[in-house]
């Protein structure tokens, strides 16, 4: 038992100090009938070596397929320094920085993170993360309902081209508070929201309008027009953004005349490995006026008794450990370690590095799309501008084609059938900056083959 550092002698000395005969006596208050028997379904312990062998086998079983899916999680390159420093014990094994003086490392880092998020999104303030992109949307919606002074409505306009699991998770998370999410249809040609669709809602009362930029199809919304429309209709604007895309796209804080009110999204593209879907982190930024409605931890810069600069958790009166049932949210543990990685990632890459990764991903996807659309029976679905992700349509059953492509060790795209049956055999594809020309050509080969065989 390498994790328990007690010798027999010590155990005896400790029991003696307590005044009991054996450890079990310490559980004397527990009713006998509640004592568990042997946990037969739990296997016997493994040594670290055996565990490593087992997981090496399990890993090998899954292999390392070449990935052309994005759909909310993107295979970007992360410099080696990022996780080597992030996993230093002092970052990796610290708790939430409750004792500020003994946590200046994490606190300053979060302050720097907040600064990076605000410049990237063009917003005024940022928190230290919520769980993920979906939960950031839910929290943003709850926040907008609390914050919108012009509307008492609990209704939120949510376009259908917003990430479908974000929509369903948000439903789960806000539903208890009687908040209603109203579908807004997308335009069949562009995949985007057009103002005509919104006009249908004019005159009604909404707390907020959600815009995802780029939207789930990778298409670029006319964020300026939608933002202005929302504000004209007394609704707040919640932008869901891809933070890497923010390095090249107009930041949410600059949308329309007044900018988005809240920008959220998933921080994964900034240094988090794909890792089967998490841990990532949810971005939450907003205008200054809304800061007291923001959930989650926030770090502020202040001074110590000697006037020396230092950092603390601040505005804690919003949080559950102070406000309990009246807190802005129940969130306590957030995604600190990934925030740490992300802050280091952004520091190493800088704006130029992010722009390079974004533009190269865009170029790779464009190249992929151009090449596959040259194949008979493959075409682009939407004619709008897009960023680094695109919907293509096949003339054969998408599921079967994607299955066939796995034989070439390729994950060919995300099948849209479950969420958007109206699109037919459509798949969402993405080639990040990590995809080489050779891999793109392999994709084209595998797709061609699959289409001919299926």
């Amino acid at each position: 038992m390498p994790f328990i550092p007690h010798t027999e002698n010590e155990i005896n000395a400790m029991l003696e100090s307590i005044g009991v005969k054996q450890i079990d006596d310490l559980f004397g208050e527990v009713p006998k009938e509640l004592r568990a028997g042997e946990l037969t379904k739990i296997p016997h312990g493994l040594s670290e070596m055996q565990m490593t062998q087992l997981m090496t086998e399990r890993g090998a079983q899954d292999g390392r397929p070449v990935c052309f899916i994005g759909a909310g999680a993107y295979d970007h390159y992360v410099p080696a320094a990022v996780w080597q420093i992030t996993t230093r014990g002092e970052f990796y094994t610290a708790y939430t920085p409750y004792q500020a003086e003994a946590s200046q490392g994490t606190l300053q880092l979060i302050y720097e993170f907040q600064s990076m998020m605000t410049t990237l999104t063009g917003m005024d303030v940022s928190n230290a993360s919520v769980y993920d992109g979906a939960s950031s949307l839910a929290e943003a919606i709850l926040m907008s309902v609390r914050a919108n002074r012009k509307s008492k409505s609990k209704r939120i306009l949510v376009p259908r081209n917003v990430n479908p699991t974000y929509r369903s998770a948000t439903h789960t998370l806000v539903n208890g508070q009687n908040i209603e999410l109203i579908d807004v249809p997308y335009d069949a040609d562009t995949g985007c929201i057009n103002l005509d669709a919104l006009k249908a809602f004019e005159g009604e009362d909404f707390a907020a309008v959600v815009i995802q930029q780029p939207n789930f199809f990778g298409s670029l919304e006319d964020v300026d027009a939608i933002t202005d429309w929302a504000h004209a209709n007394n609704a707040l604007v919640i932008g869901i953004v891809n933070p890497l895309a923010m390095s090249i796209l107009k930041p949410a804080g600059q949308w329309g005349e007044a900018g988005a009110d809240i920008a959220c999204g998933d921080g994964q593209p900034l240094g988090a490995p794909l890792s089967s879907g998490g841990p990532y982190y949810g971005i939450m930024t907003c205008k200054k006026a809304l800061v007291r409605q923001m959930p989650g931890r926030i770090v502020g810069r202040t001074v110590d008794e000697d006037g020396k600069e230092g950092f603390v958790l601040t505005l804690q009166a919003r949080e559950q450990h102070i406000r309990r049932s009246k807190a802005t949210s129940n969130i306590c543990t957030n995604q600190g370690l990934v925030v740490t990685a992300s802050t280091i990632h952004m520091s190493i890459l800088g704006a130029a590095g992010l722009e390079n990764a974004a533009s190269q991903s865009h170029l790779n996807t464009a190249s992929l799309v151009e090449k596959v659309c040259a194949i008979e029976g493959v075409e682009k679905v939407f004619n709008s501008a897009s960023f680094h992700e695109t919907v293509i349509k096949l003339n054969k059953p998408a599921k079967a084609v994607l299955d066939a492509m796995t034989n070439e060790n390729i994950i060919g795209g995300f099948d849209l059938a479950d969420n958007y049956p109206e699109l037919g055999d459509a798949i969402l594809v993405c080639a990040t900056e990590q995809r080489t020309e050779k891999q793109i050509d392999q994709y084209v080969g595998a797709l061609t083959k699959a289409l001919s065989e299926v």
Partner: protein
Amino acid sequence: MLIFEHSKRGLHKRDTAELKGIPANMRRAEPAKLPEVSELQAVRHFTRLSTRNFSIDTHFYPLGSCTMKYNPRVANSIALMPEFAGRHPLAPEKFSQGFLGCMYELQEMLCEVTGMKGFSLAPMAGAQGEFAGIAMIRAYHDANGDHERREILVPDAAHGTNPATATMCGYTVKEIPTLANGDVNLEALEAAIGPQTAGLMLTNPSTLGVFERQIQKIAKMIHQAGGLLYYDGANLNAILGKIRPGDMGFDVIHSNLHKTFATPHGGGGPGSGAIGVSARLIPFMPIAGVIKDEGQGKELYRWANKTDYPQSIGHLSAFFGNPGVLIRAYVYMRLLGRDGMSRVSEFSTLNANYMMAEMKKAGFQAAIPDRFASHEFIITLKKQAKELHVTAMDFAKRLLDLGYHAPTTYFPLLVPECLLIEPTETESKEDLDGFIKAMVQIQQEAENNPEIVTTAPHTMPVKRLDEVRAAKQLDLSWTVTQAS
């Protein structure tokens, strides 16, 4: 110095590929003002920053209710293996059997060790586990047409996330008082229960560090009233392998895998608040869980979907929770194995009771002096505060100078001037003794030279920080004042 202050405009070369097809009006006009530093500058800055932290790897960190135990390094190296770290969440099953097999086994092990019938790994922290649990309770009542149950009972010793969660689920919260001996006040509970009761949230052992002896009675009372019982598993470390929440009568529980199962807290997270349910709540489980299909002599693992749980409360996240955390917890459980589980609770309880005994002998006042502690215990310094004007916070700050992270202060709220001390099973007697010695030293200082305590810490990178100023003169992000 901030990383931004090392930044030099013009250092990074842009090598941006053409942004084909993106109209100018959708583009960014000015680059984001991220720092421009060399890789060495970044590495040096963050390496140095890291050393301004206390952590498990550097310090004894007896933060009550937080279970700061050793985070095995092998769990990290396995989670970062390229096959796991590089796996896309939407990868087809063909490329997922190794990973999903682990997740399935993790569910099974969690069921076994908690006595629950089903487990979902979806929640991304304790609070989200609570949310999922309470949402399921609500879905259950709704499914029974039981719409009048609008209230959740919460003992006043509960963690703040409990009432906050109930609110988030649309419930009102009624607080139940706790007796001086740490048990729930049954009369008050009796009085509070009614047809409006949706359920009770309970931590056992409670945040007061004692086992709720009347749990079976409480469970009966709630169940008879038609309510359900929620177990806040933040303290599962205290009973792991010895007592199972399912056997106590709980209907739904969350387990903070990042506590009990030793995944790192990372300066704030990530966590996992995996939830277990009794049979009647299975249909309501969140998406996603892992299902094992057997057939044709082959096992096939896959993610559950809406059709598996038609009454599901739905998704909680964009994908499937925090698999990188789950892998670490899985590794930890497999390392411990069957017999290791109960050793966790035994030795964490031994450590806590030993510390309490020694501290009592040294003259400190335990909040509940006559009972055994669970894996944590409370010291109250109200005497010191009154007589010496040295508060629990002063003790906490002075501990930092002496090389120990402070215990949790001022929680639970009902004990004045308290320190909630949780040593965990992975700390050695040597370190426990060192901590006690430090406390004794501070007590002597408080008596003879109180200023050294009340103005502590003295050896940290900063002295006590002005929190009022922080909240009033909000400075939440760096802004360029001057280009260089």
